[in-house]
């Protein structure tokens, strides 16, 4: 496994939508390198024949009947909104798409 470097952290911070200053990137890269080194033995612990466990207690087919339950009013839905307009959440422009 490759060590984690500053460019990796910058890429991950972009994926995670956390703006980071150059100093922060440097510091984070150093800290993560130590942690990643400490956990790397995990990748060699289990052979190919060992299945993965995603849920600690195996349950299956937990369903809800298709029956309407409670809803919020628009006012309740928007009660914590940083910005709203005409009963909708307001966000700055999305420029990612062009």
């Amino acid at each position, binding site marked *: 496994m490759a060590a984690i470097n500053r460019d990796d952290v910058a890429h991950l911070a972009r*994926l995670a939508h956390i703006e980071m200053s150059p100093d922060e990137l440097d510091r984070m890269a150093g800290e993560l390198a130590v942690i990643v080194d400490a956990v790397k033995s995990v990748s060699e612990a289990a052979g190919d024949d060992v299945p993965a466990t995603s849920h600690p207690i*195996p349950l*299956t087919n*937990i369903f*809800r009947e298709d029956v309407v339950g409670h*809803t919020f009013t628009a006012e309740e*839905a928007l009660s914590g909104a940083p910005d709203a*307009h005409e009963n909708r959440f307001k*966000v700055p422009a999305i420029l990612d*798409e062009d």
Partner: protein
Amino acid sequence: MSDAILTFDEAMEKYDPVLGFEVHVELNTKTKMFSSAPNVFGDEPNTNVNEVDLGMPGVLPVLNKTAVESSIKIGLALNCKIAENCRFARKNYFYPDTPKNFQTSQYDEPIAYDGYLDIELSDGTVFRVEIERAHMEEDAGKLTHMGGSAGRIQGADYSLVDYNRAGVPLVEIVTKPIQGAGSRAPELAKAYVAAVREIVKNLGVSDARMERGNVRCDANVSLRPHGRERFGIRSETKNVNSLRAVEHAVRYEIQRHAAVLDSGEPVVQETRHWHEDTRTTTSGRAKSDADDYRYFPEPDLVPVVASREWVEELRATLPEPPAERRKRLQSDWGYSDLEFRDVVNAGVMDEIEETIAAGATASVARKWWMGEIVGRAKNADVDPGQLGVAPATIVELNKMVEDGKINNKMATEVLDGVLAGEGTPAEIVEKRGLAVVSDDGPLLEAIDAALAAQPDVANKIRGGKVQAIGAIVGGVMKATRGQADAGRVRELILEKLGVEG
């Protein structure tokens, strides 16, 4: 900036198209995929939501059983295998219409896989489209871009988010690459989406209204030179949301790809946006490292195990498949092969069925849809079913004609009035003063005048040449500006002249 394109024929001469479709079907369950908030279209913004749909801190999803059953039914109708065991996964990406900033979807374990659909083209050729998978997921909220140019994302000042649609159950149906369609590719594209739409509507699992986004299509197109096996680089045209648009978008992308390849440039792997107004696509987002969705099994949901008993139980509830239904309808309606194929190709089979159910005869329903509405829809550039003619309107119009209240010519005029939003047929007849003149008094006057104006003709009729009567009837109709019942006029003329008809 508009892209260069080749003509379709040129493109076909040089290249072989490969298609692929991702069709999203919104299920018509009462509640959402993972929350008990109502799944209803068109309500006030942010009222069909609870804490789950808004991605509030601490919330957890619980799967809608009916949505799972609908998904299995779709899988079965698409001739898929149903996974004995499948899971949900999180697809991680940030977007303001996605309340948790991940979409709960299925990744490597779809509920249905390995199916096919036989698509009948307009000339009766059957083309098999192979289905890779059908998986369950949730819809996103609705973004409205404000300011800037006309609601487009580019240049918008801000956007507004309504989460009513967030969490609506979706089934995404993904085809395997479709090869060998050649110049029939655009037609096949339309026919495939129409077939999927027909199936989910027939199953009763979706309202299947494309204009409401119940069925949405992303169309993948790539070209390769004839004879080459390896696929070209594909574009993905997003949200092509009518049957005609699917056909046009595929045709356009084939023409555009051909021009790019001809210029020696590589095709860019990207999403494209479809514009109905110009019938072109424009470049969207290029594939980038931001597309690292970091899928992992959804820890808040447990696996779905579809026992064989459950699957068979659901299979037993499936309605008649559309192809069999078509055979039955043709026989019930007594249409010839050609008549029926025209009806299917015009896309009005469901509408005719509904019109018959509303009380019209098969021939009356066909006469109206094929004779009047299809042409108008073509002029208006919409699908006939979307023109705005309710089956009840046709039944009402037809009854007025049969009762002799109006004639056929007037009926088409009333139909135009209905489409112009002037009201119901009865209201329009009233408003425009349309009525067959049935009081014999004014007719007799007009007949006298017509006979007096054409004494030679009158004599011929008296002499037994009844076929000459047309000239007199025409004169009467002219005088009454077409409001007379021609049959009644004929009877009165013969009566007046003392001739047996």
